[in-house]
């Protein structure tokens, strides 16, 4: 036993209440400092902008297009990410097989790689003969699908991580019980595992959505910064910043924050309600 733990034990009941309060105060202070930082950033941003700037940003057709494309592409990316991440997360949490560490490492690549490199790699991929053949059917490079693919490549990796953790926390025992009661693996998955993973799926989905909304590096390289075509909100910020329109850049950033907060709060509220009703 270390001296520190001995001391803690000695103080145990006597100073219990005071020490708990101190402990929580420290936790709260550390946590609050981060929240204060985020709020301070927003306040600083707001000082460089005004409601007028945000309104005039909203009046620009290019920015309205970017807002629309950002919301649609991020949502689509979130859905696609869940379709891939649910099966992948489930399999990774339930099975052991040779080469699993390697697979794990591969799944980390989109998280580790600098976003620009992902964009460049996608660009190169679509210039290879199979890539070009694919583009003859569905043009991707510099077109709208490239935005979704660029966002998906990165966002999905985050969704996989989140869902794998979710499925690992769901004890396989309930599934086994369901199967002993005659359910197939598929039935057990749909009826027992997925309902329990609902919150995890929601978290993974919102994580992927938020990640996709803020994605810029791969979009810039793979989709280009083309006004009214592949321009998403981060592209707008880049374009405004690159001609010195700091107010407009900040206005668009605040618009992004606003959109993200609204969507995330609504989805989480809806998700929680759904969870409650399903439990009931």
């Amino acid at each position, binding site marked *: 036993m270390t001296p520190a733990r001995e001391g803690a034990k000695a103080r145990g009941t006597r100073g219990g209440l005071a020490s708990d309060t101190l402990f929580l105060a420290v936790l709260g202070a550390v946590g609050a400092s981060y929240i204060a930082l985020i709020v301070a950033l927003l306040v600083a941003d707001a000082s460089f902008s005004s409601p007028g700037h945000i309104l005039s940003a909203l009046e620009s057709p290019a920015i309205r*297009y970017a807002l629309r*494309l950002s919301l*649609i*592409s991020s*949502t*689509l990316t979130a*859905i*696609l990410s*869940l*379709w891939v991440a649910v099966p992948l997360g489930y399999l990774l949490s339930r099975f052991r097989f040779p080469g699993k560490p390697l697979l794990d490492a591969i799944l980390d690549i989109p998280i580790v790689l600098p976003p620009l490199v992902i964009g*460049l790699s996608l*660009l*190169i991929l679509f*210039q290879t003969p199979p890539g070009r053949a694919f583009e003859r059917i569905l043009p991707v*490079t*510099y077109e*709208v699908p490239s935005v979704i693919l660029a966002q998906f490549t990165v966002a999905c990796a985050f969704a996989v991580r989140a869902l794998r953790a979710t499925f690992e926390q769901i004890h396989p025992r309930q599934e086994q019980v369901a199967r002993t009661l005659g359910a197939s693996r598929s039935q057990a998955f*749909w*009826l027992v595992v*997925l*309902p329990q993973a609902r919150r995890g799926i929601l978290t993974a989905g919102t994580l992927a959505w938020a990640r996709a909304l803020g994605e810029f590096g791969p979009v*810039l*390289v793979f989709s*280009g*910064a*083309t*006004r009214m*075509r592949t321009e998403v909100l981060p592209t707008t910020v*880049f*374009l405004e*910043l*690159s*001609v*010195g329109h*700091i107010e407009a850049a900040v206005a668009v950033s605040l618009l992004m924050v606003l959109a993200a907060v609204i969507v995330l709060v609504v989805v989480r509220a809806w998700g929680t309600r*759904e969870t409650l009703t*399903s439990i009931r």
Partner: protein
Amino acid sequence: MTSKKGFLLSVVAAAALIALLAWPARKGSTPTGAGPLIVYCAAGIQPPVEAAARLYEKERRVPIQLQYGGSGTLLSSIQVARTGDVYIAADESYIAIGKEKGLVAESIPLARLRPVIAVRRGNPRGIRSIDDLIQGDARISFANPEAASIGRQVAGVLTKEGRWDAFSKRITVSKPTVHDVANDVRIGAVDAGLVWDATARQYPELEAVPLPAFEGARSRVTAGVLTTSKVPTEALRFARYLGAAEKGLVCFKTAGYEPVEGDPWQEEPRLVLHAGAVTRLAIEETVAEFEAREGAKVERVYNGCGILCATIQAARGTSAVPDAFFACDVSFMEQVEDEFLPSVTLTETRMVILAAPGNPLKLLSLQDLARPGLRVGLASSEHSALGFLLASILDREGLGGAIEPNVKTRTPTADLLVNQMRTGSLDAAVVYEANASAVRGVLDVVPIALPDARAAQPYAVSRTSRQKNLAGRLLDALRSEPSRRRFQATGFRWIAGVSVPP
């Protein structure tokens, strides 16, 4: 809601989102069916280019798709993606790299840039020069020389002056683009930054401290037409529009740039080219290709250079001076050099003696042409370069008087002599190798072993031409590899880039 229902809902939602994305694409397709021009544009020069592109779309109903990024980043994208029509770089050095890599064909200058020190309005720290920055304690933001042209240009000048080490130690922060530097000054993160004059003018909060000693660090915003373009004529037309004095350049001026002196806007520009008759075979195809690619009309006037020079001298100071002159020899260019910008000599061709097939009369040198009873054809010394140059050689060699009785004809161009030789009405004629190229194998071609029995062909653009850029691009076309092969196939020797003594 069950899990399966949830999944089905996500499928429906995805389908609905894809439909939403596809909607504007269909609506936005052009009625003419013409695809959009893909234009890569340095992000920093977005305002004037976007304004010009919108005007062009309105006037010509050709959609322009602008794609922004750093000049260097865009160049990498072009290299990988191999698509696109026009590339507009904030600095012509990127266009030069693009040309080296075979990505950029033609280039059109748009606006000049000069380095200045940007400080906050009112210049609170009283910064007046680079020395103030080196000696003072101002916080300095500098664009990375590897990433941004302003950094590269200024670092180059300072290195040459031996001040770079002292200056670089004073740099507080390096930024990737010139606008990042200007933003630093604006926000107040630094006291001064080196930016282009045009950049500083875009920020009302900034003041520019001019750097007269940095004339050598000037640069130019330049548009390049990409070799990947499937519609080069349309791409060139847009590039010409950007560089047109009363069109794109107005947008640049409005946005605070110092525009170059551009050609006037013409949808199908017209260029008048005077060219020595001897060059016709070598350049005709190249000029025709140039016309097709540029969507331009080149009116070529081929004639003996004496006649062309007389026409140019008569037209002196009027609009009848041709936009460009491709002379048969530098001696002719010298006669009218006041009218033209400095010339570039592309080729030379040597004089030869044409003789009947098999050379039955054994004519081996100019002396042999003095043999009594020979029927000789020469080019007129007043009308053609060949005649003029040959007359001076014959005089020097003491042959002028001896050959004179044999001269049956003096023609304004050497082409006519070739025809007369073919009909058999002459025993010998002195022409250029270039004239003889078409009849090699039909007639005997005898080289003349005198070092000055040659003519060198210079190209120059008129000082008064309103289409200087277009005429300059014609020179680029004439200097291109296919053109070089055509010159060589028609009996010219390629000497472009080598200076030729008059």
